[in-house]
């Protein structure tokens, strides 16, 4: 079983230093063997994987949605048994966004039960608001900044996006919102295709930890595994993130 840590970089929002820093953090905080890979639109190194472009033509940037659809390519690339491009069969995958701070040993994520894929459940969300705004496609309870799966396990998601790309990109405001509607069930959180990392694993620098009891913002929680810095308002202060590297 090969352990893989994946990240993804495209465009100019983050420069190469973010990828290098994430790689450094992983090497310093993972006590079991792993390979680090970066899906990128500018592949230069042997651990770089070119990002496909097949979905580009279906995504209409003018609609103003921030849609990280490129993440979906990870769920397909090298995931079919016998397709050993980069990953052998029976691999495990941990995807991380570039703007995370790792506090604890990442071994934990590779040792989670793998009956279902794992994704960040934003425990800082008020579940009442999640349900109230479900039909409005707001207050999404999931966050795709960290995802864990085993080979082929996310293939149904890829197939669904591939089949309904135009409809999906038109309808949902983000990848996370799409996940929440098709692959998760906020009413029965144990029943979805995706399961959320437990409380205490991952928190948000800009949104808090667990609603309503631990919602202090911009507070380090070193007992947690990972801190997320992404913010849907796109008002991230990269200086704050860099000061914590």
């Amino acid at each position: 079983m090969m352990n893989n840590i994946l990240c993804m970089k495209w465009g100019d929002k983050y420069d190469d230093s973010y990828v290098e820093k994430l790689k450094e953090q992983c090497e310093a905080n993972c006590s079991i063997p792993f390979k680090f890979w970066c899906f990128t639109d500018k592949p230069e190194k042997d651990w770089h994987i070119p990002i496909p472009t097949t979905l580009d033509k279906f995504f209409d940037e003018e609609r103003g949605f921030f849609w990280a659809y490129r993440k979906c390519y990870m769920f397909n690339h090298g995931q079919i048994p016998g397709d050993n491009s980069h990953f052998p069969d029976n691999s495990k995958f941990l995807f991380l966004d570039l703007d995370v701070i790792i506090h604890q040993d990442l071994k934990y994520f590779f040792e989670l039960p793998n009956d279902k894929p794992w994704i960040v459940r934003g425990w800082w969300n008020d579940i009442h608001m999640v349900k109230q705004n479900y039909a409005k496609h707001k207050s999404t309870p999931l966050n795709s900044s960290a995802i864990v799966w085993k080979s082929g396990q996310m293939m149904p998601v890829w197939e669904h996006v591939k089949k309904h790309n135009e409809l999906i990109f038109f309808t949902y405001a983000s990848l996370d919102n799409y996940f929440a509607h098709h692959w998760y069930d906020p009413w029965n959180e144990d029943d979805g295709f995706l399961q959320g990392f437990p409380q205490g694993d991952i928190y948000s620098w800009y949104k808090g930890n667990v609603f309503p009891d631990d919602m202090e913002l911009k507070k380090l929680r070193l007992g947690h595994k990972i801190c997320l810095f992404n913010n849907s308002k796109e008002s991230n202060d990269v200086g704050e993130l860099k000061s914590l590297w």
Partner: protein
Amino acid sequence: MVDHIKFTTEIAEDWKSVLSLLHHDEYNHCIKRIRDASSTSQLQSKLWLVSEIVNLNIDVEKVVLLAGWYANFITPLLIDELGVKYILNLDSDPDVKTISYKFNKRYKIDHDQIENQDMNHIIRNLREVFDVACLYRCEIHNVMFEPIKNYGDFDLIINTSCEHMFPMSRFRKLNRSKNCIYVLQSSNDRQYDDHINCVDSADELADQADIVDTMYSGEMKLSNNMTRYMVIGK
């Protein structure tokens, strides 16, 4: 012109049970949505819809509501003004099933009560079998992703939520065998994030749905200042 809902003792009983439901913490989050679904503009748009169907003298027995939300106004109007016998509401919001069944409890039917039965036969014998004027059924179903063929045939397909979804041409491609009348409403009000497909005219709405035989086309300014467009046709 239809300008009111018949507020019967049965409706009073059912609508009261919705209010009772909201006392449960589990349904607290629905209060705002129920208030929104009970607004003046919601009623205006449904009265308009039913009035125009009455004017067209369309014979309707079986209706499917696409994204019909709680169907609190449309259900009694369709039954009392048009004599509709069967209403199926398909919505992707899991809360809709519980709440719309409360609003329309007097007509509620579950899937297992009609499974494998001929719907036309049931409709012909409604009074004898169920002792009601109409049957109301609700299912959680995203109509843009999955066809509705398993639910049977309908005379009328009503979608008053077109601004919330992909153009209706996709639904028609998914459900090619449906040779029934479409009643569609949308708006030009782009201030809401979930209004992902607003239009600026009834013609644009008709184009989006590949309507070629237009029986009615019009617009109405609602009490909330939103301009609503409606198309009826095939």
